[in-house]
């Protein structure tokens, strides 16, 4: 086993290495191959520093090395740094295994031929049976380009003791939501903790409203650029949103807070609910976590329930030089023993249904809740084009701060949509 021992240094080193490899490839036009390409060593780039997950990856490496006699090198990279570096290293100096996000973000790389088709591995190992519907998250044109990892279910979260103290009940439909809003305000707490400094939580709220009001097909048409941002179907979404904004539902000055700071208000009992994924618990003090309860976003229109369920994924880059060995590693990593160890520290929902039962009550709540869901989207910035997503995130944040600018914002979003996806057929 020859992974890099120090976490802090590894991030910088990995970045430098991938930049250096990129420069070398450019300089020599791909003629000079690095000497280590022929050796039986695979490189893995992992995009998190969660200690328990790294241990699970190492356990998989040990299994892999025992089974194949080859070596594996584990490089750790910061989650955000990986998002920008991956485009460099997939083209020049690709590792043999990398971690990414399924859905449209994966498809962006599949379209450019940067991820390897691993349908053979999926078929040989019979992953389809263990994964069920989750397999669709990594499937493009009925071929698989990665293996799905932990899923994050989005919805409302509240603390049981805070709700009991103020005699509040979790809202399940629109009227109850408005009643909850008044009750929370008169109890002197913020109805919904919300931090939009990092933009994306605002888009998550848009997803919730659009999935409840227009449903999954309409939502995905909008994500795929096949529907105008000026479409009358969206009027109801923004009307409901504006009603909440004007009723003082959201944390005041939410653009100043990131989600961790907003979660702190939830943890202190100064806010009633928060709309986010189950990683929310990382922002709460340990003693509050046992009180945390998940409840789906309230029903608005009488349609089946659709949810945002974003799934991470693991891939073999198309430029990997050891694709066979990489498949062997994926087999070891995806074995139930290693995979369940990998998910234990995160509180995310495992993709395989044949793993040992989870001990985290929050995960079990989400798993139960997912059984009644009619269909899932991923998340606004994972479902739509990245360029569109950036414009949308800014637009939704602006709408939440300045709802009176709705028409300007939507016109601007439609202009961006037209630039990216082209004009709609009349």
């Amino acid at each position: 086993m020859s992974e890099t021992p120090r976490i802090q240094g590894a991030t910088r080193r990995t970045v430098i290495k991938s930049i250096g490899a990129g420069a070398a490839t450019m300089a020599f036009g791909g003629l000079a191959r690095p000497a280590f390409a022929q050796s039986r060593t695979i490189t893995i780039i992992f995009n998190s520093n969660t200690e328990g997950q790294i241990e699970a990856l190492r356990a998989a490496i040990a299994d892999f090395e025992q089974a194949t006699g080859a070596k594996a090198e584990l490089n750790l990279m910061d989650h955000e740094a990986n998002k920008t570096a991956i485009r460099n290293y997939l083209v020049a100096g690709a590792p043999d295994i990398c971690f990414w996000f399924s859905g449209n973000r994966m498809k962006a790389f599949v379209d450019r031929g940067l991820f390897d088709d691993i349908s053979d591995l999926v078929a040989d190992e019979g992953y389809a049976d263990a994964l069920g519907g989750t397999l669709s998250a990594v499937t493009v044109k009925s071929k698989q380009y990665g293996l799905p990892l932990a899923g994050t279910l989005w919805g409302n979260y509240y603390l049981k003791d805070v709700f009991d103290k103020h005699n509040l009940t979790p809202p399940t439909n629109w009227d109850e939501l408005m009643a909850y809003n008044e009750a929370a305000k008169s109890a002197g707490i913020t109805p919904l903790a919300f931090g939009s400094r990092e933009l994306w939580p605002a888009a998550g709220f848009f997803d919730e409203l659009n999935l409840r009001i227009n449903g999954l097909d309409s939502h995905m048409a909008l994500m795929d650029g096949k529907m105008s941002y000026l479409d009358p179907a969206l009027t109801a979404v923004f009307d409901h949103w504006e009603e909440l904004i004007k009723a003082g539902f959201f944390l005041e000055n939410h653009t100043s807070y990131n989600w961790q700071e907003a979660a702190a208000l939830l943890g202190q009992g100064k806010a009633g609910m928060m709309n986010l994924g189950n990683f929310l618990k990382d922002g709460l003090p340990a003693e509050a976590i046992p009180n945390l309860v998940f409840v789906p976003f309230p029903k608005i229109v009488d349609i089946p329930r659709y949810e945002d369920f974003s799934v991470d994924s693991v891939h073999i880059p198309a430029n990997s030089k050891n694709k066979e060995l990489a498949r062997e590693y994926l087999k070891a990593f995806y074995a139930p023993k290693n995979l369940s160890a990998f998910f234990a520290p995160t509180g995310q929902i495992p993709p395989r249904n044949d793993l040992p039962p989870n001990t985290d009550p929050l995960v079990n709540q989400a798993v139960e809740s997912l059984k009644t869901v009619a269909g899932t989207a991923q998340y606004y910035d994972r479902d739509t084009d990245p360029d569109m997503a950036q414009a949308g995130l800014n637009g939704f944040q602006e709408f939440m701060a300045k709802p009176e600018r709705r028409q300007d914002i939507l016109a601007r979003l439609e202009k961006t949509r037209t630039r990216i996806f082209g004009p709609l057929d009349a």
Partner: protein
Amino acid sequence: MSLIWRRHRTWVVPTLFIAPSIILFGVVIVASSLQSVWISFHDWDGFGPMQWIGLGNYEELLGDPQFYVSLKNNLIWLIIFMLAPPLGLAIALLVNQQIRGMRIVKSLFFVPLVLASVAVGIVFTWVYTPQFGLLALAFSAFGQKAPALLSDEHLVTFAIVIAAIWPQIAFCMVLYLAGINSLSEDLIGAGRVDGARGWNMLYHVVLPQLTQVTFIAIAITAIGALRSFDMISVMTQGGPFGSSQVLAYQMYEQSIFSYRFGYGAAIATILFIIMLVFILWYLSRIIRAEEWSN
């Protein structure tokens, strides 16, 4: 052999010494700048084929409201940052006094220069956070409610510049402290004999000797203001809704998040031209001033 060496060593040795930096400068600065300009005429997502669109990116930029917001913010940065050299000078003169304990004061003023700008940005973000930030606590001590500076589209840039100017003042202070140490004792003594003190001494005797330092302080401050990026990224990510973006941040967002390298390169080119015009104008003034003083 030694004859050839003797004949050529006058140019071979300097060339060998200069070559590494020339090559590095050529590859890292000149070539990549030219490549950026070339990219700015294309529609390019960063991996796929580049498509020539001529001045398309520039035309779009001129119609982009965000571009004018960024340009205006760059101007705010530049103007407020110009306070750094005079404030740095004032503090340098203050801490240069021979008073007990001044060393400690000096090092306190020096501290922000040691901190990474990202750390400064994070600390100021905490100060500005509504409800539990230091600013909010200070206001509430007087029964007032602090404005949410980072949520106000009109105040946010000023709030960030205040955070960013703190290390910049310290930097100017260090420059001036070095300059003050090399002041000519003779000239000051002569001035004193002629009865100069206070403002007169500062304006007519001390400042003229610090002209070179002032030029450097202003040039570096201006460049620092125009390339400001890290503070914005840490404190607001350009928000709320793009109102604190500057050209450098807009370039980053368009290239990295929106995958529009051509558009980002066009913004970079505009920023490059602005800096070039400023520096050429400024250099010409320095050269004229030096010729005049000789």
